[in-house]
């Protein structure tokens, strides 16, 4: 058993656990995107960042790849962690703004602006499909190619691979292939509609008591509750 500190709480991890697994075991929520239980950790999306250590020596690591160590001090929700996560979401949003998973993450973490040029590449290079193909489907039909800004996931020579059995595992696991809700402002980069939809006004006032006579549409009550 490994004893370590997580958000000030003493936790025990089993040999071979990662920081993420320990946090999950104790019910501490750490957002993930490129992590999947059936696949090897990859550490690509950097959403599961946590702060380890204390004081000026504290640093950010990806919890899905960091092994639990004796005496480790972990913070999962510091300002630095949250800011880093929001930046990652913002960056991923600029690459694949039509992804439902990423739009939902943006809504959940309150990412309301996007300061980067929209690239519409529809792939965030999380490597889930590559690992799915190689580890679960034993296909090894797709993989990373090229380098730097030209990096992409494809089959050899961009033609149908002989190894591919069309199982569809890559599409099943892809977070960017699911299209976002095509709401009223689908052309803008961030929908955030879910932010104003979630607790409706009617939870607090019924239709007659709403002083705007416009049940929930003004959003005042929602904003009051949020802050």
């Amino acid at each position, binding site marked *: 058993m490994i004893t370590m500190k997580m958000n000030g709480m003493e936790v025990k991890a089993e040999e071979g656990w990662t920081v993420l697994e320990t946090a999950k075991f104790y019910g501490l929520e750490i957002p993930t995107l490129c992590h999947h239980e059936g696949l090897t950790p990859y550490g690509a999306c950097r959403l599961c960042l946590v702060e380890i250590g204390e004081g000026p020596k504290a640093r950010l690591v990806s919890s899905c790849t960091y092994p639990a160590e004796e005496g480790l001090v972990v913070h999962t929700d510091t300002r630095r962690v949250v800011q880093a996560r929001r930046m990652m979401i913002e960056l991923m949003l600029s690459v694949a703004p039509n992804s439902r998973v990423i739009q939902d993450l943006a809504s959940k973490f309150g990412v309301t602006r996007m300061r980067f040029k929209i690239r519409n590449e529809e792939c965030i290079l999380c490597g889930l499909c590559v690992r799915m193909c190689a580890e679960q489907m034993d296909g*090894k039909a797709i*993989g*990373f*190619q*090229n*380098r730097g800004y030209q990096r992409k996931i494809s*089959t*050899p*020579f961009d033609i149908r*691979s002989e190894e591919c059995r069309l199982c569809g595992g890559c599409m099943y696991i892809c977070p960017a292939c699911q299209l976002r809700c095509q709401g009223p402002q689908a052309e803008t980069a961030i929908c955030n509609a879910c932010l104003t939809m979630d607790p409706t006004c009617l939870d607090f006032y019924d239709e007659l008591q709403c002083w705007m006579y416009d049940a929930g549409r003004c959003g005042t009550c929602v904003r009051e509750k949020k802050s």
Partner: protein
Amino acid sequence: MSVHQTINLDTLQEIVERHGYNKNKLIAILQDIQAVYHYLPAEALKTLSKLLKIPLIDIISVATFYRAFSLTPKGRHVATVCMGTACHVRGAPKILEEFERQLNLRRGETTEDGEWSLETVACLGCCAIGPVVVVDGDYHAHTSIRKVPTILGKYRK
């Protein structure tokens, strides 16, 4: 030196044998294949994947990662213009343009007769003799636009 058009299985087998069918020596093997064909033919890579028992996609990943490897045929002569910072400030872009004009092709392309390929490189590490142009492994130091025809003439018959 001629550009092979067909893939000789024996040559490939011999290269792989020389490296002892070692998966870890993939890059060295790819270099040897490129030395024979001047590029990495698709057929050769497919055979290599079977010989070494590694997935084809892994070979492709390595081959596309490094600029030293090319999946498209290269010319008989390869001119590489250094575009590193030191060479850049000493006029490498002008030299590159001159090469493009003289050879009538753009960077990264190969002439239709398969004679010349023009490449750029980020830095060759010999900034003191910049601007540097490498043709078929020969380094040409302190190049200028005026020297371009002389350099090309050396390799033209």
